[in-house]
């Protein structure tokens, strides 16, 4: 029986999933048994019927991490098979003292406001990124020294691309 540790907003739930039929499941959440009918109706959309109640779930998935949108509510969860729950408890955490500043969205680098080797304060702007007529200042969450600037002015970057490192 597949068992999952599901974390949402700091709370960990133990969930067992038993497939009964094509769409039919029994799902046990922290010991409570639910009748679930789950059906993948579109790419990135699944329809759940939990004890008769319908939920349309919009999701994106990145390995164990799920980003869900249900009736306008946004949820971020991590779901792992029990076998790998040690990893969940270990946590990802931040490598203290080293901050990777990456692009939160695709855009164009309008300005690079600091230089490698420069000392920066927490909250100081490092780079101005423009997308869709808006300029967005990207800041360092911690103080430190800029150890790397990975982009130049005018560069077009994609989501998640490394922009700078502060140590």
């Amino acid at each position, binding site marked *: 029986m*597949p068992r*999952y540790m*599901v974390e*949402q*907003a700091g*709370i960990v*739930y133990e*969930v067992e*999933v038993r*497939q009964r039929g*094509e769409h039919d*499941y029994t*799902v046990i*959440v922290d010991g409570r048994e*639910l009748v*679930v009918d*789950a*059906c*993948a*109706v*579109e*790419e*990135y*959309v*699944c329809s*759940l019927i*939990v004890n008769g109640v319908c*939920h349309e*779930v*919009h*999701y994106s*998935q990145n390995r*164990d991490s*799920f980003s*869900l*949108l*249900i*009736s*306008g*509510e*946004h*949820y971020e*969860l*991590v*779901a*792992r*098979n029990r076998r790998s729950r040690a990893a969940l408890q270990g946590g990802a955490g931040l490598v203290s003292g080293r901050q990777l500043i990456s692009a*939160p*969205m*695709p*855009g*164009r680098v309008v300005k690079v406001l600091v230089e490698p080797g420069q000392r920066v304060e927490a909250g100081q702007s490092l780079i101005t990124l423009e*997308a*869709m*007529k*808006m300029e*967005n200042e990207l800041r360092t969450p911690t103080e430190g020294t800029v150890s790397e600037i990975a982009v130049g002015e005018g560069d*077009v970057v994609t*989501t998640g691309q490394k922009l700078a490192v502060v140590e």
Partner: protein
Amino acid sequence: MFKKILVANRGEITVRIIRACREMDIRTVVVYSDADRCALHVRYADEAYGIGPAPSVESYLVGEKIMEVARKSGADAIHPGYGFLSENYRFARLAREAGLVFIGPPAEAMESMGDKVQARRRMLEAGVPLVPGTPPLEDIDEARRLIAGIGYPVILKPSAGGGGKGMRVVHKEEELASALEGARSEARSAFGDDTVYAERYVTKPRHVEIQVLADNHGNVLHLFERECSIQRRHQKIIEEAPSPFITEETRRAMGEAAVEAAQAVDYSGAGTVEFLVDEQQRFYFLEMNTRLQVEHAVTEMVTGVDLVKMQIHAAAGEPLPYRQEDLRLEGAAIECRIYAEDPDNDFLPSPGKIVALRVPGGPGIRDDIGVFEGYEVPLYYDPLLSKLSAWGRDRAEAIARMRRALQEYVVEGIKTNIPFHQRILREPAFLAGDFDTRFVDERFLPQEEGRPPEDPERAVIAAAILAYWAEERAALKPQAGSDRETSAWTRAGRRDATRRWGG
């Protein structure tokens, strides 16, 4: 009537204008940048011509390139939409000098209203109310006398200043002396000039605007108001007609003031006169937008008038087909602007590919979209994807319809502000009509922060099921682990097909 109109714009407003033209049997010509070859406005137009690189300054903002397309295609009129060149009086002049009709007011009216100082002067002359103010205050006695003529509360502002520095709100006369002294000293240290003047302080300001329509024969009508106080960082996000706040008397007075404003600059076509309204229903001219407004649909829904068609008729020299008394407010309408932005992450823009799209429908719902499924929302332009509007017999019905339409709206692949709209539309203060222009920034967003999402259990179940499917998939096809195309959906679809045809 025109045979062919060039729409010098892109996105949903270009689609909107093409729709009006098509309904009038007028051919449409559009322009597109390199980023927009596959955009919806190009697919909907009758003719399309490329005008260069993606950045607007090299394409949509280059008047000469657009004039070149107008010549090449044989268009006889240009509709500028909103944004881009729509309020550029030089472009309007350029078009007219080339023998084309510019679908908008005379260049002179655009110029007058575009210059804020000139606009205030013209409005003052025309008797349109402005926020009352004083000349620079010489001393405390003169200040007392002048401010008594305006009424408290007032705000003291440095003549040289800006950015909020040296400003002081004064609620009653007793506070004046010390406030004036403080404002002076702060202005002196900030700007090296201690000149200070007073203006009536608008408490709980509402942004309410009047739609006007004028022809080339001196007729000017107003089409009632739109309430636009739901703003985030001075950007309108939800608009309604009528305003749930103003009285019938204020409505009439504002309508008349707006008509006077338009007449004062010999206006023609569609325009909007923006006002601030205070708690006592006093209203003050802010500015006039000499073009179609993003939120024009709510006015169309409560009056039945197609504003874009009216613009075209007026530009073609036809007299307005209505008199003021023909126009009636029927029911209520509300519009939500659907932006590609992430409300759960400080409203960061969210360009990218729309992998799934389902627009809402049914009674009272209108959707004005500029994108389609499979479209890659480019990062060069405004993040407005669509405008969703709802009509009801009253405000409660319009809001109820909007709420259920938002619930139906599906945009996958990029983030949108749809969940944000859903939360505003459940907010008791919004439902009661109890808000002003600072509502979202000062009351709504702070209370939203850190709010835990409702009903986490359904999400927990969903995540477990999705994790289970992912494992099953990986077990079935170990090589396709990272391939999003081999989704559970495809698999379920295949299974369904088998079962259905087998049974």
